[in-house]
């Protein structure tokens, strides 16, 4: 496809630019001997209590999975939105509107239930 090649070329340009900057700055900067104290993770001056990958709240998982579900529903509205005028002029606009209405109704039930069940509460 015609439009994929420039996208790939631009990606390569960006990556090349980024790698160039990183490499140049690591060559130009002053070098000092690495010491255990210096390489330690930053923790506001105290000794490191735990490593970076400690456990995280399950809320993040829940947010991500709810995001996927709603994202899929929204993606389904996109082809509907750009063809809606065509369907109206084609004479079956009401049918399409009702079909999307039912879909949106289920969507709203889902959202309402999420709010009611306090799944979206952060403390």
């Amino acid at each position, binding site marked *: 496809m*015609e*439009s994929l*090649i*420039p*996208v790939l*070329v*631009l990606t390569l*340009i*960006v*990556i090349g*630019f*980024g*790698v160039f*900057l*990183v490499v140049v*700055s*690591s060559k*130009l*900067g*002053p*070098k*000092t001997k690495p010491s255990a104290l210096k*390489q330690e*993770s*930053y*923790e*506001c001056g105290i000794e490191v209590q*735990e*490593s*970076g*990958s*400690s456990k*995280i709240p399950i809320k*993040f998982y829940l*947010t*991500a999975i709810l*995001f996927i579900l709603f*994202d899929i529903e*929204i993606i389904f*509205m*996109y082809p509907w*939105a*750009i*063809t*809606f*005028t065509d369907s*109206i*002029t084609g004479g079956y*606009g*009401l049918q399409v*509107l009702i079909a*999307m209405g039912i879909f*949106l109704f289920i969507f*709203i039930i889902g*959202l309402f239930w*999420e*709010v009611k069940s306090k799944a*979206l509460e*952060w*403390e």
Partner: protein
Amino acid sequence: MGSDLIEIGINTAKLLVIFLMMVQIVPLLVWVERRGSAFIQNRFGPNRVGPLGLTQLLADAVKFLFKEEFVPDKNRRFLFYAAPVVALIPGALAFAAIPLSIPIEIDIMGKSYKFLFQGYEVGIGIVFVLGVSSLGAYALLMAGYGSNNKYSMFGALRASAQMISYELALGLSLVGILLVFNTFDFQQIIDSQLTNFVFMGTETALPNWGILYQPLGFILFVVAVFAETNRLPFDLPEAESELVAGYHTEYGGIKMNMFYIGEYGHMLVASALIVTFYFGGYDPIFWTPGELVATYGNVMAALLLHVVFLTKVGLFLWIFIWVRWTLPRFRYDQLMDLGWKTMLPWALANTIITAVVAFWLRA
């Protein structure tokens, strides 16, 4: 990319120029931000180096390059180095898909060429931009994981949770725009905004801009892009009172600067999208592009329209900066509540109202 060497060469140069435009805007915006914040807070800001402190940017860039490199002592070096590079990609790819002015048609060596005033034309522009910018979360996750620091990790997790929460409202507020313009293509969206607004059968002096059809959608979109770009009042991922500096705690020098390029690139894309969807793109209001081409010729008209576009984008970039120094930061639960319980229902309402009105008017 083109039929012969001249076309391929110019199209490649165009990509390079557009990317450098995005990179170049960063020091300029940093300067505007520092001077602007100083102005808002009744300070001076950088005013020593060069006229109005403008060469401060160059000094900063050189200083960033000569900083000592720091890498955390863990076997996650590759992700640590890759994250700032990845942070540049989504903004650049999205910005190149937006038309910045009318196409230029010129003759070179007896052959006529047509060059689009944009990096590349993607038929499904809006979906492409949404898809590419949804990859922005990975740079943050890679930085958070590669740094091996719990502040970085939590900053990255917060950032990605925030980005995905507001991506819903962002995507849904665009459904209204799609219902109005019936296309994914940026060029067609701009073209249909070039006429005058018709109200109740009479033509008014107002331009036919998207904001007149989608006022609620506009507000939702602007709030959502503020959250997507992690700017104040939504900059929870780098809330310094809680998380030191968020996902770039362990970064310094040019690598941290690259995250800034990514962030300002996102701001640039966001402003360009706002202008394209709601403010007529490069629409010069009082004339049509056709009239300008007739008066000034194709190349000059394209450059003039590009200046119009950049002026509108600059206005929104200033609003980004203005808001940053005006509003305080949200608390994290308030942020998530706003995204899921306020923005999402309102975006749904906007979609339903637009669909019903469209059906009522067009049936």
